[in-house]
């Protein structure tokens, strides 16, 4: 059996502080202990927390990683906690590894005779009885192990003897092995009550870091997340409050990259108002898919730096609102306002925009310029602007001079008044006209027809060439 004990230590903490308080609990890390355990699961399936250290049983997997030293170097290189270093100590059993780590933290040299020579204070099971054992003359593990078994168990309980047996390898070790949950869900108490949504972000970052470790360990990409916070008050300003508030964050493509999710989350939080101060934060993965990974290309045109399109769309939609970021959709209609619809880009983003091949598009362009579409104006007024009529001539920033036309259109008679088609049929004569100020404009005259009779011709502006 071969064990490695790991412990994280912030880099800023000087060694003197560590020596002064060796039994202190692990310093606050920007990542939960649970997540650190998940991280270690990539090396070996046997990982457990033992007191303040994470112990890994590596005898079965050492060869896979090329031996113990390469494995330890990998652990250093893949350190998940920034600005910290990992103390790595190996031993024949988990207790020995832990004891050596404690000695290392105290700055003492491990004894030559292991485990018999290890000092007693490094054994957790013996800590309660240190004084008594010391008065009995027992200073090392070997001294205690030499005492008669029956008497030792009666005097100090079975736990001490069991621990010693485990340390010598006489008895199998029992650990609560860490496993990866199927769904990510972590709770975190905020360091202080959060008054506004922005203050949640710092703690949410810790949860996101843990989520990333979980995703990598499970080889999944996240599609949807839920961030929930517990409100500290039940009633506020005379209003009963729900116990929780939450926001959901969605992305179009599965990701393990937390930067994008963090940005989306902070945009969402910026638009959210806390009903009352929050005390706890919980992050849950709602939807995940298997992570396919990405194949890298060596071609320079495939390796453009920058964000992906769906990230851009999601970020813009999160801040400006999904109704402000639009993509067009062509529709089959003869009326100009019906030829295209705009819909939120967020919904479409799943299907990436396909660039047409150049030869095909060149051909398409040639045929497209032959179509009557080429004469349509590039700017459209969705609501046709009613034009003033002076002396029988339509007026838009000056008297309009008709240049071409009419192009006659009669459509929309199938639409019912209440339906989406919108009101009365369109019976129009389109003209290209020139305004002295605005240049070429696209206007139409509503032609009196059988079913829609108006007494005088009404003129509308529908497009600008300019």
């Amino acid at each position, binding site marked *: 059996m071969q064990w490695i004990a790991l412990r994280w230590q912030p880099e800023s903490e000087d060694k003197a502080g560590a020596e002064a308080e060796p039994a202190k609990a692990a310093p606050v890390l920007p990542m939960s202990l649970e997540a650190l355990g998940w991280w270690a699961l990539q090396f070996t399936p046997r990982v457990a927390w033992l007191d303040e250290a994470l112990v890994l049983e590596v005898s079965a997997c050492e060869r896979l990683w090329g031996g113990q030293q390469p494995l330890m170097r990998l652990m250093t290189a893949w350190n998940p906690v920034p600005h910290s270093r990992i103390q790595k100590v190996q031993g024949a059993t988990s207790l020995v590894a832990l004891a050596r780590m404690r000695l290392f933290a105290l700055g003492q040299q491990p004894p030559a005779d292991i485990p018999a020579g290890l000092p007693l204070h490094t054994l957790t099971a013996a800590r309660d009885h240190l004084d008594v054992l010391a008065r009995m003359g027992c200073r090392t593990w070997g001294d205690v192990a030499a005492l008669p078994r029956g008497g030792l168990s009666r005097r100090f309980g079975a736990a001490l003897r069991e621990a010693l047996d485990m340390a010598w390898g006489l008895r199998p070790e029992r650990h609560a092995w860490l496993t990866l949950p199927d769904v990510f869900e972590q709770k975190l108490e905020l360091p202080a009550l959060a008054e506004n949504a922005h203050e949640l972000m710092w703690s949410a970052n810790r949860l996101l870091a843990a989520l990333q470790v979980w995703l990598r360990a499970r080889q999944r990409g996240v599609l949807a997340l839920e961030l929930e916070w517990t409100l500290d008050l039940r009633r506020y300003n005379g209003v009963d409050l729900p116990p929780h508030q939450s926001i959901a964050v969605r992305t179009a493509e599965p990701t393990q990259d937390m930067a994008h999710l963090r940005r989306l989350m902070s945009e969402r939080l910026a638009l959210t108002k806390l009903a009352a101060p929050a005390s706890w934060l919980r992050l849950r993965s709602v939807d995940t898919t298997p992570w396919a990974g990405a194949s890298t290309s060596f071609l320079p045109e495939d390796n*453009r*730096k*920058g*964000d*992906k*399109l769906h*990230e*851009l*769309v999601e*970020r*813009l939609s999160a*801040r*400006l609102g999904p109704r*402000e*970021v*639009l*993509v*067009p959709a*062509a529709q089959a209609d003869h009326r*100009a306002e019906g*030829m*295209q619809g*705009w819909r939120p*880009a967020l919904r479409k983003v799943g299907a990436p*925009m*396909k*660039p*047409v091949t*150049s030869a095909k*598009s060149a051909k398409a*362009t040639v045929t*497209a*310029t032959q*179509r009557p*579409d*080429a*004469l*349509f*104006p*590039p*700017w*459209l*007024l*969705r609501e046709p602007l009613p034009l003033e009529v002076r002396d029988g001539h339509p007026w838009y920033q000056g008297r309009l001079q008709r*240049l*071409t036309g009419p192009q006659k259109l009669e459509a929309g008679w199938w639409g019912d008044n209440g339906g989406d088609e919108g009101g009365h049929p369109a019976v129009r004569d389109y003209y*290209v006209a020139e305004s002295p100020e*605005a*240049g*070429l404009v696209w206007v139409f005259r509503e032609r009196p027809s059988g079913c829609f009779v108006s007494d005088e011709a009404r003129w509308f502006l529908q*497009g*600008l*060439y*300019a």
Partner: protein
Amino acid sequence: MGLPSVSSPFASFASARHNVWRGDELGVADMPVMGTGHAALDAELPGGGWPVGAMTELLQDRPEAHVWQLLLPALAQAVDARGGPVVLIGAPHEPFGPSLAAAGLPTECLMWIRSEASAARLWACQQALRCADVAAVLAWLPQARVGELRRLQLAAAQHEGLLFVMRPASVAQSASPARLRLQVVSAEAGRMDVHLLKRRGPPLTQALSLPARSGRMSALLAASQWRRQRSRPQDIGEIAATQDAAKGATVVRLDLRLRREEGRHAVDRLAVAA
């Protein structure tokens, strides 16, 4: 009157010459360019096209005017090359997809960001520039300040797309970080005058005259004008002068018309009589 002692060290630095730009010649583009599709404009731009990865400013009074006519060939080319969307930020009107598609810019390659606030537009512009897939960004930023434009220029330098910023003509005299500044003024007879306010090269004193309408539209307008002229009585004089044949028939039609529209074309009648 070059000094011979100085000329020889310069000759040894001949390889460095391409890094030296003399103020009286057109600058050589140190970054890729995208052809504008207008030959007259290409000839006057450093490198022969719109700078890619730098900001180009278009100044004009009416924010919607001439934009598509000037930019569509380059946009179609950029979309073709990169396949990404063209992002319109704060467009003054709704862009009409069928018309743009006919000019080579596919409808599905448009993205329209409607935003009124100036700060939101700038932010959206920066975000769009950071995206790898975006082919071009067209932003209408009437209220942008120089500092904000400089930030956009820096963002554009990180990015290999086109960035066009539309601003009012009133800022023509103020400083700008843009690599290229153009002022577009409508001119007579369906043309526009493009003043190159800033470029890497000698100042251009005379404005470039480019067609302000698409070829198809110009052809249509010319055809309908010709037809109108032919059918309209007042121009008969010219036609009669140019067309010796069938003179009599035209005169007959003219007389009929004149009789119908009595008094309206008294001057024309005089011209014809003369």
